[in-house]
């Protein structure tokens, strides 16, 4: 990273990082939403989302990419991700089935296969959120003492 007075890397690096990060994020959403059906899933998509944010941190510097993902949100957002997962499990339990038995998820009328689909999808989104937040939190914590950009 080349420190210069505009507090970031050179122009080419910044623009490329911005474009590539958006592409990575779209691909990450694709991976999450297709996880139950083809290779992919919560962890992989979450890691890709984290990669996109870390790329922005590297390219633009902490000050600018802070608007994208504030470092202080990382741990609470991770906790929310895990709560989504455990929450779906508890919802199934309270609705009559076993823990994480997706047939009983309290969603509007669907047959068992669709319930499974939606239950797993919500769980994957929770996992992706948690993984993204934790990986970005690790990255931010490792660079805490360094100079800003």
């Amino acid at each position, binding site marked *: 990273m080349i420190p210069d007075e505009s507090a970031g890397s050179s122009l080419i690096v910044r623009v490329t990082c911005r474009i590539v990060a958006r592409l990575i994020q779209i691909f990450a959403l694709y991976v999450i939403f297709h996880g139950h059906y*083809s*290779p992919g*899933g919560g*962890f992989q998509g979450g890691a890709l989302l984290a990669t996109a944010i870390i790329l922005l941190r590297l390219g633009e510097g902490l000050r600018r990419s802070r608007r994208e993902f504030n470092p202080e949100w990382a741990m609470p957002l991770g906790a929310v991700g895990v709560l989504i997962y455990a929450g779906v499990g508890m919802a199934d339990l309270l609705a009559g089935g076993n823990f994480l038995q997706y047939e009983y998820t309290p969603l509007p009328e669907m047959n068992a296969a669709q319930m499974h689909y939606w239950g797993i999808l919500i769980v994957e989104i929770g996992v992706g959120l948690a*993984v993204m937040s934790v990986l970005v939190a*690790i990255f931010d*914590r*490792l660079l805490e003492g360094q100079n800003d950009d």
Partner: protein
Amino acid sequence: MIELIDDYYAYWFCFLLLTIGLYGVIVKRNLVKKVIGLSIFQSAIILFFIIAAYKDDSTVPILDPRIEVTNADAYINPLPHTLMLTAIVVGVATLGVAFALLIRIYGKYATLDEDTLMERMK
């Protein structure tokens, strides 16, 4: 004897990786190299499971319309793959914790070499 190596060459490679990983953990003095050795060791075990899942003349375990649904032998075993997804996540988390500890150690003792660290800790 040759069949032993030839048929199971994948397992031999896996054991080679295990040995390299353990060598790194035990012999290397730099703490980061120990962590890298640990990572290689875990990757070798993941590879072991994946090798165990493979079958000759079978395809990836995604439903292929050209194969009948009841013919399970045509797909490789997907269970070890899913188990290894979890193992990979565990490996990533372990690496994260290991590096966090290393940063703390470096911040206090300014060295990552094991022998120098033991000196400075006295």
